[in-house]
């Protein structure tokens, strides 16, 4: 299964090779979707964990013991409908088809459940209608 989580690191664990540990000790692949890690600061990672459900659970428990905050609420994409002009440019870069144009109305449709918060759509939008709350 796949599970998307946000990891918040205290300063001390920022340097830990976390994805390596998850792969080696738990057989869980961690696909980094977004990273915000700077020296001497709290780090944030949005990752998609892929593996057996029990192993993902064990990996999450291990991370919590390491003082890493694990929350399933990852950043969310918001689309300002008043600003959006339904140009559709974002639909061409969205890797998961979370953003599509309705084939009849040609208006933008955002399917939140498909969004992996890769944020590629944000700089693509010519009128700045897309943002993230993270």
């Amino acid at each position, binding site marked *: 299964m796949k599970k998307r989580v946000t990891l918040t690191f205290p300063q001390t664990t920022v340097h830990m090779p976390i994805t390596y540990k998850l792969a080696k000790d738990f057989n869980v692949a961690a696909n980094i979707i977004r990273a915000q890690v700077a020296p001497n600061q709290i780090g944030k990672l949005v990752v998609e964990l892929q593996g057996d459900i029990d192993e993902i659970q064990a990996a999450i428990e291990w991370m919590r013991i390491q003082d890493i905050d694990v929350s399933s609420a990852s950043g969310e994409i918001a689309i300002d409908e008043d600003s959006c*002009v339904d140009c559709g440019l974002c639909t061409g870069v969205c890797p998961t088809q979370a953003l599509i144009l309705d084939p009849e109305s040609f208006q933008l449709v955002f399917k939140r459940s498909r969004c992996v918060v890769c944020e590629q759509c944000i700089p693509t939008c010519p009128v700045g209608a897309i943002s993230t709350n993270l």
Partner: protein
Amino acid sequence: MRTIAEINDKILQGKAVVWTAEELKIKVQEIGISKAFKQVDVICTGTFEPMESSGAIINLGHTDPPIKIRQCWLDSIPAYAGFGAVDLYLGATAMADYSISETLERIPDSKTDRERGGGHVIEDLIAGKSIHLRAIGQQTDCYPRASFENNITKNTINQFYLFNPRNLYQNFIVGVNGGDRHLHTYLGPLQPRLGNAVYSNPGAISPLMNDPDLDVIGIGSKIFLGGGVGYIAWEGTQHFPLQKRLPNRTPIGPAATVAIIGDAKQMNSRWIRGCYLKNYGPSIMIGVGVPLPVLREEVILHCAVRDRDIVAPIVDFSIPRRVRPTFGLVTYQQLKSGRIKLEGKSVRVAPLASIALSRKVAEELKELIGAGKFTLTEFVAPIPKDRSFVPQDRRGSSLNLD
């Protein structure tokens, strides 16, 4: 046969039959060309797309003591001042001077950056917002003032009209990237190895696709421009009517263009939007609607053209030369399906023109005409049909499709 005068009489009496281009295309399928011709008086076309060769003429009014402006910035965006004393031209793609934007980029939340351009300032002025003006003058006996700063709105300046030297491109290209480096283009991001494709013309609903030889519109034709009234002023820059054409007369690539003009004070910022294409620059998206008078049956024949009947060339942007290699032609029906096949690969396609808002422009124009609030004009001179295209540094238009 109908005349514009007859159509206008009907409009003023509330009796004109007005259809959008999309309605017409469906009607023709149902009842055929001759019957459709008998019923309809006006066909409304519309588009909403980035049109970067656009800009605003502004006359500020004279200061006391007066100034002859030589350099001028509106919200840090430079405006051209090489006219009379307080006449300015603000181009849609103008950006803050590099030295200024570099300083400002380091200030978080600063309103001015490279993403904001002339198009955004035009949108804000139309929306009634206040814009900061800074001007440097050449001191003369007539105009002793050396500099001037003020905040302006559209109500504190004399003229404020759009004069767009190239709008309504009759057809355009489809951009792809066959290289292995991510490209930022005027069509938006193009991902390497044919990762995506972008087209920018709304296809069969687009104004000049419905009057391919510009037979019923010309200089002086009244149009819907940004929510207000505008006129076709001249042939557009890069006007290239001699582009190769299909038997239905639609061009197979970029062809005719028009210059348009209209009072920006009457416009609505819903239809005039500053925009920014990442790492390319600022531009402006404009809603333009063109009413086509149904003078002859031929008008219906041309308006009946559908997305499957018109094509655009697929151009590879990975080779930054004037003549770029193409992957051949694709129909707008294929483009609007969201996927095209290229070299055996299914490639996702996104538009850059808003098809939804293009339709709304046509509907809005239809309502105005139906309500007797918008009449048509006879054009005073035709748009030339014989302009060739001088290769100097034209962009996207020089296609070798043999």
